């Protein structure tokens, strides 16, 4: 089940955790901003950052641009 040819395994799982932690923190900040009448523009900026994180790390946007589409 666990071939030796996957040295990236812990890295990728750890990266997923890291991205998720970032997203969670940002969501908490969002909630705080939203309930404390702070500038709305911050909410947009955070939403864009969150979307960027998901699109880049979870959806692997760059795979659509890589020439031979192998998995990682």
């Amino acid at each position, binding site marked *: *089940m666990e071939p030796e040819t996957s040295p990236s*395994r812990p890295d*990728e*799982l750890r990266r997923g955790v890291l991205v998720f932690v970032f997203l969670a923190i940002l*969501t908490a900040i969002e909630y705080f*901003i939203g309930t404390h009448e702070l500038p709305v523009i911050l909410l947009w900026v955070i939403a864009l950052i969150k979307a960027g994180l998901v699109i880049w790390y979870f959806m692997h946007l760059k795979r659509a641009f890589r020439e031979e589409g*192998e998995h990682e």
Partner: protein
Amino acid sequence: MSAEVPALKPAHSYAYKLRTQRIGLWLFILSDAFMFGGLLVTRFYLLGNRRPDLDQFVGLIVTSVLLISSFFMNRAEVHISQGNQRGFITSTLITMLLGIGFLAGVIGVEWRMAHFGPADGPQGAVFYMMTGMHAFHVLTGVIFLAIILRNGLKGHYSAERHWAVEAAANYWHFVDVVWIFFYPALYLIGMAI
């Protein structure tokens, strides 16, 4: 006709086709994003600096549920790309359950708790249409997850070939991205009416 046409050599390799399919899926996502963009325009055009009066706590809960589901979705994909069938099944199952939990949260709790119906002014129209369209996408995502879960249990996916998993995962993340914008637009921006 078929007699004179011998068996064809595939025009492209699997890897080449894979990227073609990825481009196709991204184009679909782009197209769908325009529809959700239109809903956001509708929300700001009609409500502007006001927002529907909703329960903040439930909103935060469902948002967290969807975010966590995205985390497990990513985990499922990483597992299958490394050949870990067990991890893939577990993570997919968790993702699916969280998705169903999100649907229950929005439709079962939020829709019931809201003190306005779809016919009550612009906030009703906007709120039910936005959450409704999003919930419809979550529902289709759950169906895709059920399909890959079933086929995954039968062992159809391998570390090398799991386009269906990748597609379902990308779709699921896209639905999450939509909610990343819908959550502030519905719950946080503006003053509650």
